[in-house]
């Protein structure tokens, strides 16, 4: 199967690299578009409008931004089944001749990806799956594929269990760092209680082998809950994930290279947990990311530059802003990074992490005294400061 994107390092096979498999299904060939069918095997589901665009955005981010000094990007396999709404929002989706995430296509892509991931032990494997989801056990994450619901087939014939893939990838020769993202609901349909045993259509053999060093599974939703999406913007999980990777989860924790800003498993999970929940709360809902698998603190991504943190400064009383000359100074470099007169509160500036000093010099005769915040620590994800005059 053709690969969506490769880097030169992939072809040489001489050095470890990162191999990525991404698939997202919004349009299901056997599911109705709007009104759920009465067929119990279709689980009351319809086609949806955010997984494919979410998968595409993640693939685009990996292609353009992902950086891992130990295992640079090698390949991206991308399989998408977008809805018309997603194509309208992201016309690029219509121009790619991407394979659909059907059971057969995913099986082929998965086997090829697994072989690539077994070339170098020091490599990295990333799998992102989005679509309708089911969760039967804590570390299972069943994602329904494009041809789910074929008449006469086993109920989960068109489905893949990411928990099984995770287990099957624990091979002595496989990439020692693996990351799994399951951007899908985690519900158990009532009809499943009638089944004694169910197997997903794609099921890899699980071999006895040593565990890899780190293989976390980031589940987009806690068991028995839904993963939410925002039409046009993608799932809440992908929105928060990209924010985390670009800024919110960045830490300068490489003692050998202090200027490097990294995203590692633990910080990514902490910030993803709060980020997704905050987004859900803004819609009056709840969504909890769950961490499964082996969650050793592995490096996922290294930012090219320090993250840009939104720093919002406001003054109290608000009426004082028209008399204020605002200066934001880095205590690290002594450079003035923002200067505004008259000051308009609140003022949001994007700054690199560090310690800053805020000066508000008031106009003579304004009846306000100068305001100073001598040491403001600015760290991801964002900072709000209020200066009382």
């Amino acid at each position, binding site marked *: 199967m053709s690969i969506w994107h490769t880097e030169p390092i992939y072809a040489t096979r001489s050095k470890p690299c990162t191999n990525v498999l991404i698939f997202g299904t919004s349009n299901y060939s056997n599911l109705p578009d709007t009104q759920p069918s009465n067929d119990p095997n279709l689980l009351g589901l319809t086609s949806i409008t955010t997984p494919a665009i979410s998968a595409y955005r993640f693939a685009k981010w990996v292609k353009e931004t992902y950086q891992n000094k130990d295992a640079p990007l090698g390949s991206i396999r991308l399989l998408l089944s977008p809805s018309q709404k997603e194509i309208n929002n992201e016309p690029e989706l219509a121009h790619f001749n991407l394979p659909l995430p059907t059971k057969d296509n995913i099986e082929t892509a998965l086997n090829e990806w697994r072989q690539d991931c077994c070339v170098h032990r020091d490599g990295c494997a990333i799998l992102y799956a989005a679509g309708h989801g089911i969760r039967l056990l804590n570390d299972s994450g069943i994602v329904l594929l494009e041809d789910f619901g074929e008449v006469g087939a086993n109920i989960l014939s068109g489905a893949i269990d990411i928990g099984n893939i995770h287990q099957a990838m624990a091979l002595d020769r496989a990439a020692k760092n693996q990351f799994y993202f399951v951007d899908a609901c985690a519900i158990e349909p009532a009809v499943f209680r009638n089944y004694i045993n169910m197997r997903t259509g794609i099921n890899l053999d699980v071999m006895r082998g040593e*565990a890899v060093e780190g293989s976390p599974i980031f589940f987009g939703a806690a*068991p028995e809950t839904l993963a939410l999406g925002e039409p046009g913007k993608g799932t809440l999980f992908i929105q928060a994930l990209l924010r985390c990777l670009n800024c919110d989860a960045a830490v*300068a924790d*490489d003692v050998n290279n202090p200027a490097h800003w990294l995203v590692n498993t633990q910080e990514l999970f902490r910030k993803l947990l709060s980020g997704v929940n905050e987004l859900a709360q803004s819609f009056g809902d709840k969504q909890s990311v769950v961490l499964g698998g082996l*969650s050793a603190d592995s*490096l996922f991504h290294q930012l090219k530059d320090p993250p840009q943190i939104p720093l919002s400064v406001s003054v109290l009383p608000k009426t004082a802003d028209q008399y204020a000359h605002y200066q934001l100074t880095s205590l690290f470099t002594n450079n003035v990074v923002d200067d505004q007169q008259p000051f308009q509160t609140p003022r949001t500036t994007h700054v690199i992490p560090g310690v800053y000093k805020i000066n508000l010099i008031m106009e003579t005769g304004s009846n306000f005294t100068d305001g100073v915040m001598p040491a403001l620590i600015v*760290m991801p994800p964002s900072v709000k400061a209020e200066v009382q005059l």
Partner: protein
Amino acid sequence: MNKKFCNDFAKNPNHNNSTKLLVEVSGNNSVDLPITIRNRGLHLIGHSNSNTTITLDPDLYVIQLHRPDGREQSQLVELEKGQVKKIKMSLSYQSDNIKDRSITLSTNIKERSGDTLNTRSGEQVILAIPKRVEFNLLEKSFASIKVKLEENVNYTQSPARNPNLDWVYGNIEIVENVQQNQQEIHEKPWGCLVRILQFDGSMWAISDHGIDKAVIHSETIADVSQTTLKFKASNQLQVLEVRKPQGESTHLVLPLSSNSLYEECTVKLWDSGNDFQIICDFTNSSRASLVLDYLSNGSYDFAANITGNAEDMLYSKIKNPVEAALGGYVLLRIGDIERLHNWPSNLCEWFPKIADGAIIAAELAARKNKNIKAFDLFLEASQRGLPMFREGLSILVARLRSYTLYDKKLNISSSKRKKLQSAYKLLAEIALFSDNNLALLSFKEASLVSQDAAELGWQFIIPSQLKQQGIDLSTVPVLFQGESDV
């Protein structure tokens, strides 16, 4: 890339003139908390713990305290040459949101005339009514609510022995629905039923230990009834079962008593009317409490740091298998199996009533490719009732599932296969309904006792709202003639 916590990480410390820093954390008595030291550019200098003296070069530093609630607290510290500096950071947190701090409870006076209830408050009415009564809104203004009480002809009295099951205690809130230009009645029933189940080594039964005096404190904050219950811990595995009179059960596995620890077990019950939450408080182990807090916000790295050396934990704190089991799960989760050494086997043997020890030993064996031993230990664990921790159930069910589905090379005997299948059936159901937000195992729906015992052994927890209202249950408002037998 695991965090290495070290106590002294100065590159070139000048020992004659060394600069030292000690971080103390108020609000935390006994356990050292993880801190990170960064330079003024926020680049990592090193990791350490509170109450540990750190040697640093003179400079400006940012000290980051990783709080158990998931938040981070940072402080800028300037260290001068030769200075020995002590800084204090606090765990207390004051909410920015005034609503978080306000305590509200609407109180009102009710007047009854015939089948009409009239209140002098226009917002809500707090009362206790039989479930066979339904009410309809007659009038509502800022000053009063008038509700008509009628018999609910659709209600069938339950055969339950506990008369409380036939009553609803709660409040009725009248809400304006602006969009539909009408008023809606929101009912919030209060009160929960609790009972203790005990595992005797082969099956679950209702405990005959009374819980009559279990309630040690109750109060109402922001319309939520908060009740603290204290149970005498047992060396038998116990489960607290809680349910609303008209709702489904939630089960919470209580920590086992072992020697002098966990003689008592404190559980907090938050009853918000339509829903409730239960949380077990590890009052006897601040270390276990902290580890659970870190785990709940996803900080496995800090939890691992708090657990310290797991082997020491087992030998020096042998009275505390709960802490040891917790430490074992954390190390398994972050993949640091070297630190587990052989102690999981000891935990398994020395505490034969704890499933968690067998699960950790089994998982360790499985990861070392000792598959026959692993299978036997997992099967042993499944016969010990339930693990105390959700993590344990998750590992156990995943492995049992693998054995039932995939692994046919273990030559499992038919009697073991039978045990495996029946254990997997029960545990998988419990796992499916387990609460992912709690570290201690808690689950809904699945039942541990037979249907015959469904209504036995319950104790009603009187909602504190009624107490605060000064309502004695024996004189609860009688809204219908002949309904006084509460």
